[in-house]
């Protein structure tokens, strides 16, 4: 690409002070990222740091509220994905973006990608036997991701953005991808590399830019031992030992209520085993997409396991429908409240729903009993009921309370909470921790996935850390400092994790 003298000295991409809010929630305060020609820069941040919002803004999928984004020194609006492309920034998204039902040649034509350079890159990336008349949907996931990369490379971008590029790739392809990406930078392009994998970052990146709480908090050159600095930055300055809640963990003895061995499902959940006892809150920590979604879905009866066993109080279980899991005493609160709530119905109907599900409850509703039950759930969870008519009018925190209250209104035995405090205010969070402890004290068992590490000591007795679809660490809450959890979540501590990092993926 020809460039003027002035352009040559400017960073390929320079984003400063980018901010974005969604209603009352501030997703980005002050995000910054600078990438020069010839550089690969890692963009890092823990879950909820604002990384995905930042990526969406840079790729034109979202509009920023404030800040500057300059590409080759020119202020760009990035109003749409097409606008970002035109400005010279080409992303490769985490999910494949070829049209499944078209063959590869048609996909190229649709995106106006020249075929020859595309095929060159496909061969270079290690897919020798690709045929242009293969239907995209028939190709394996790993191939699709590589094709996305080849398509981006064929467009000769100024700035290449790769989002978790090596996820779902077998080891040999990972090696080739890393080599090609490094080669792009050496050839004078700028690359933004988003990844959770330190091994890869160490191999190809020049710098790492770290986001925390919607702001850029550090920009470090990659050198030996940088992992610890990055982890520190991601966690924030306050690396004080966690203030554990009162009482400490109790000793867990006897038969576990939930006994999971070797559970696997789909491409992401490989091999997860753990026990959950009566009266215990077991925390689950994992970076995004490490198999925790699949784990909870399998336990909730939403998804079939492809291997492994689930036992509840000694009896093996096989769930074909969420109703089976509920009958076995497993109640699931999904991460996205929109998946769990009847948004246009009332608080009362939402809370009473599971009670009415079985065939034998289809008749007259005992209105008074139901009313009392719902009222006690509302009272217990302190749900603000000023807007009872439609649940969607409640605040996020109150909505979350309704989804939990639905199960508390009945007899809860085992509660599966998936990131129950995502996007809700601090006061409500506290109430939820308190409720979780209360329920456990009354004998309920709780599996508690959270994307926020500081919650672990407040709510949990033990923690399992999952990386790459496997349990890499099980800790008592007393030993589970944030740093230790974070290192484990990045696969940096356990031998198993290290092996996984070294392998950098699964075949």
């Amino acid at each position, binding site marked *: 690409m020809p460039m003027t003298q002035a352009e040559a000295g400017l960073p390929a991409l320079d984003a400063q002070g980018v901010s974005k809010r969604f209603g009352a929630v501030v997703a980005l305060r002050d995000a910054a990222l600078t990438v020069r020609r010839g550089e690969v820069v890692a963009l890092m941040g823990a879950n909820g740091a604002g990384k995905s919002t930042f990526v969406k803004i840079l790729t034109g999928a979202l509009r920023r509220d404030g800040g500057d984004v300059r590409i080759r020194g020119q202020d760009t609006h990035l109003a749409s994905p*097409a606008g970002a*492309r035109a400005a010279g920034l080409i992303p490769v*998204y985490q999910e*494949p*973006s070829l*049209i499944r039902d078209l063959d590869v040649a*048609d996909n190229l*034509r*649709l995106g106006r990608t020249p075929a020859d350079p595309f095929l060159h890159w496909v061969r270079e990336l290690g897919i020798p036997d690709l045929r242009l*008349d293969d239907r995209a949907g028939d190709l394996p996931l790993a191939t699709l991701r590589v094709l996305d990369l080849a398509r981006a490379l064929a467009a000769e971008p100024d700035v290449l953005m790769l989002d978790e590029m090596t996820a779902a790739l077998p080891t040999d392809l990972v090696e080739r991808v890393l080599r090609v990406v490094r080669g792009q930078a050496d050839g004078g392009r700028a690359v933004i590399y988003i990844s959770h994998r330190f091994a890869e970052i160490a191999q190809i990146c020049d710098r790492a830019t770290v986001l925390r709480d919607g702001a850029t908090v550090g920009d470090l050159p990659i050198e030996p031992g940088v992992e610890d600095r990055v982890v520190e930055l991601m966690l924030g300055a306050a690396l004080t030992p966690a203030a554990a809640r009162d009482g400490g963990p109790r000793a867990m003895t006897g038969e576990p209520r939930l006994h999971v061995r070797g559970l696997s499902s789909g491409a992401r959940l490989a091999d997860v085993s753990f026990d959950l006892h009566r009266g215990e809150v077991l925390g689950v920590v994992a970076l995004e997409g490490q198999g925790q979604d699949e784990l909870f879905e399998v336990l909730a009866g939403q998804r079939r396991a492809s291997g492994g066993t689930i036992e509840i109080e000694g009896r093996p279980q096989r769930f074909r429908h969420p109703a089976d899991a509920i009958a076995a005493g497993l109640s699931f609160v999904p991460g996205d409240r929109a998946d769990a709530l009847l948004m246009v119905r009332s608080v009362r109907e939402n809370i009473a729903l599971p009670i009415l599900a079985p065939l034998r409850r289809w008749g007259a509703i005992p209105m008074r009993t139901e009313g009392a039950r719902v009222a006690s759930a509302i009272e217990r969870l302190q749900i603000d009921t000023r807007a009872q008519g439609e649940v969607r009018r409640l605040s996020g925190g109150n909505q979350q309370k309704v989804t939990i209250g639905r199960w508390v209104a009945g007899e809860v035995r085992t509660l599966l909470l998936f990131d129950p405090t995502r996007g809700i205010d601090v006061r409500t969070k506290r109430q939820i921790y308190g409720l979780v402890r209360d329920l456990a004290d009354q004998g309920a068992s709780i599996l508690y996935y959270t994307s926020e590490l500081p919650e672990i000591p407040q709510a949990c007795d033990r923690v399992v850390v999952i990386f790459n679809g496997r349990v890499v660490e099980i800790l008592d809450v007393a030993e589970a400092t944030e740093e230790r959890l974070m290192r484990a979540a990045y696969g940096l501590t356990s031998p198993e994790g290290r092996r996984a990092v070294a392998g950098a993926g699964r075949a």
Partner: protein
Amino acid sequence: MTRTLRRSGWVLGLAALLAALLLLTKLIQPGFGASGIESLVRAALPFAFATAALAVVVIAGGIDLSVASMMAVASVTAAVLMESAGEAATVPVVLLVLLVGIAMGAINGALVVWTRLPDIVVTLAMLFVWEGVALLILQAPGGAATPWLRQLIVGPFPIPGLPEGATAFLPKSLVVLVFCLALVWLPLRRSRLGLSIYAIGSDPTAAFRSGVAIGPTRIAAYGIAGLLAALGGLSLTLSTGIGEPIPGPYLLAAVAAVVLGGVALTGGRGGLLGPILAVLILRVVRLILTLLSVDPNVTTIIEGTIMAVVVMLGGLLAMRERRA
């Protein structure tokens, strides 16, 4: 590659099934021959166009329940204009009817885009609207069709230099059908618009990321469906000689043929060849039942059942795929 084979396997299977059914017809009635095929294809013509129209919209991820009503509008418009304007104006009338079809389809599409209602709701409402329009144009069956135009779909297609016996098995109506569909579909299938239609049906998000303008593409798909429905209406007028304001049983037959023809109701998958073969198969089944002197009403039941079963199987298959 086996994948390519598997992809066209469904269409090949349909072709084989059609051949087997034709053979069966011949066995049941030894007299079945060229003229039998000719009347079969001619009767299938409106069904084929209705199916093609629906298929385009379904590929784009929508559904158009107003296909039969749009055909009725086209049919009565053609019949009324041909009767009043005389033979000289036939070609302009045909062009006008096709334009009306495109306009009706585009209105459907624009309403889907603009109201943001599900396709099925908008086109259900438009089913009533177009039906009403047809009734306003012509209260009862009437009008006329230009005779030479009618001859276009009657009889065998003569090829100079070939004996009549050889061309007898090539009905004009089949040539008309193939010609019209090829004219509309082949350039489209290879164009960016055609690819965009598949893309928005398959995965709107990915299509958007590839730079496809979703709204205009959707409107275009409905417009093409309108054009094909207008062709269907014309063929209806040509084969009966009059305009018919009450829509025939084309919608459900088209849904069944589209599903049987390998077009997924979830969008993005399939072509026109499969659905057209499916239309012919359904017509031959009807013919066989008639030849077996099954009560025509029982024939309706059997047809309805085949359609319902096809749609239900399609639903089950789609569900299995989603699970896998």
